[in-house]
């Protein structure tokens, strides 16, 4: 479970995150929805302790991220905004490197690696060097290495970015499978259809603030709009930056 309380982060004059609070529960998919520049990536970066918040608190499974960042990172599987692979290593070697850094014992790591390669359908390219991977192959490898230590909480920053329709569908299925395993899944997106289809809870962010935190149905009820797209536009206050 991930609890976020009143997070703030400014870069000079830009208040990227300006008092964000929400909770992402185990066995649920929580979507962080917002237009470009809303502060999604910055919020996630504070969750996985890459950035220190100016104010506010992050609790992962009850552990304070500021007090024990290593313990928090151990409980997180993260697909960051930056998903560079090591081009001179194969997908398997990329995954093994992260397994070793996570402290996963060799045999256990190999078992997890093969399971992920199976689920993510990576067999065809798993032994090829990452140089020249397609966008989809890169994302799959990045996800596999992020989950190799079997984390309870999964953070995905725009996981379907750059994927084609089929790959996007499979990614969604994969996220549902993670939920079915009882994990806490938190992902960011600016695509409302995706969020609506997947999420148990939606946290809508605009200009660094949470403007709504509801289930998709509640959102529709609250705004009185039957069409989700219209509901979002109404909440954010403008149609700016949102793709259908």
């Amino acid at each position, binding site marked *: 479970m991930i609890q976020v309380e009143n997070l703030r982060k400014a870069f000079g004059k830009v208040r990227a995150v300006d008092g964000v609070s929400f909770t992402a529960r185990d066995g649920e998919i929580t979507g962080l929805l917002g237009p470009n520049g809303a502060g999604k990536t910055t919020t996630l970066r504070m969750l*996985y302790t*890459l*950035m*220190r918040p100016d104010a506010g608190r992050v609790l992962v499974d009850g552990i304070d991220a500021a007090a024990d960042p*290593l*313990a928090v*990172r*151990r409980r*997180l599987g*993260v697909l*960051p*905004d*930056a*998903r*560079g*692979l*090591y*081009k*001179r*290593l194969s997908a398997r070697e990329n995954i093994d*490197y*992260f397994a*070793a*850094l*996570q*402290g996963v014992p060799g045999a256990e790591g190999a078992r997890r690696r093969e399971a992920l390669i199976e689920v993510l359908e990576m067999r065809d390219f798993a032994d090829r*060097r990452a140089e020249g991977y397609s966008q989809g192959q890169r994302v799959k490898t*990045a996800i596999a*290495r*992020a989950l190799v230590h079997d984390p309870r909480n999964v953070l995905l920053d725009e996981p379907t970015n750059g994927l084609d329709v089929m790959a996007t569908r499979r990614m969604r299925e994969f996220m549902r499978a993670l939920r079915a395993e009882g994990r806490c899944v938190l992902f960011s997106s600016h695509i409302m259809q995706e969020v609506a289809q997947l999420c148990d809870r939606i946290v809508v962010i605009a200009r660094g603030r949470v403007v709504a935190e509801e289930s998709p149905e509640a959102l529709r009820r609250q705004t009185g709009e039957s069409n989700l797209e219209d509901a979002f536009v109404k909440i954010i206050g403008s149609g700016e930056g949102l793709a259908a």
Partner: protein
Amino acid sequence: MNVPLVVLLKEVRESLRDRRTLINALITGPLIAPLMFVMILNVVISRQLGQAEGPLELPVIGASYAPNLLEALRQQGFAPQPPVADPIAAVRARDAVAVLRIPADFGKSWEQGDPAQVELYYDASRRDEQQPVNRLKQMLERYSRLNGAMRLVARGLSPALSTPVVVAERDQSTPRSRAGALFSILPYFFVLTVFIGGMYLAIDLTAGERERQSLEPLFVNPVARWRILLGKIGAICIFSVMSLLICVTAFTVAGRLIPTEKLGMDLSLGPLFALEVLVLMLPLVLLLAALQTLVAAFSRSYREAQTYLGILMLVPALPSVLLSVLPVKTVPWMYAVPLLGQQVGITELIMGGAVTMAEVATCLLCGFAVAALTLAVTASVYGSERLAISA
């Protein structure tokens, strides 16, 4: 498994797959210097030998005015060349190293017993070309002295009267120290090799990793950043030590290819020398790895890091250049200054002097202390928030 070791093994493995890094660290870096060195030395040596032993060929203007003088010079190994129109222009344009001009009234002055003048045109600022000039001067001198003595004898006086003081030269240079003067640039080559051997790795592992967007995912792992840094530094050190090993070995081999014995020098670039160089260089290996990583962490891109490190590469040349321009006496504190310590230590070794245990200890202790300090600074930069953000 131990985190720094995991990082180190992965970085070494990945770098071994990179042809550019390999070529730079294992071929260009360590071998260019010895190769250049052998070539330069061979040219220098054969030129010096040629100048010292071959016939001395210089243009002479007015040779017909002093046939006896010319004949005497010829017997000393002088080979007069056809005259040039303008001696000053010829020397300025480097068409001739020097030009000898004999005035038309040479014979008249000689007959009358006045000092007969000859003119020697040359450029004293060209220090490497003074040997032929000096040779000719000596030949003329000898001719003058001989004839002076004969004139005294003809008047019934002892030639000794005209030489009240005689200088007996006692050159204290030994063959080994003469070799050392030639080899004083060697320490810089070793430093340069370490620098180049680690440079591409240092850039790649920090600036490159950030540019390729893999630093952020790496830092998401639950390990302290300084441990990751240690692994990376270790990988850089492994490559720069490999470079240095190849370089030192190449010099040991190259030492045999240089015809130093023709100059009456002897070099001991043997295994012991190689080992001593390696030990003295160890602190620099760590210091440079930390420094290069620090620069790479500050740079915004791979290219920027390359530019900065290209400039930084010239810094280690300073002690070499300074010491060759202002040859000062080696004093103990010099061993305490990284770079300078290696410079004087290795120079001392080449010159056949001994470096004491205390001096080696000073060099290592101070070197490692400075390296540790640099490493601490690098670690604090590695801990900063902005390092991981690629965009």
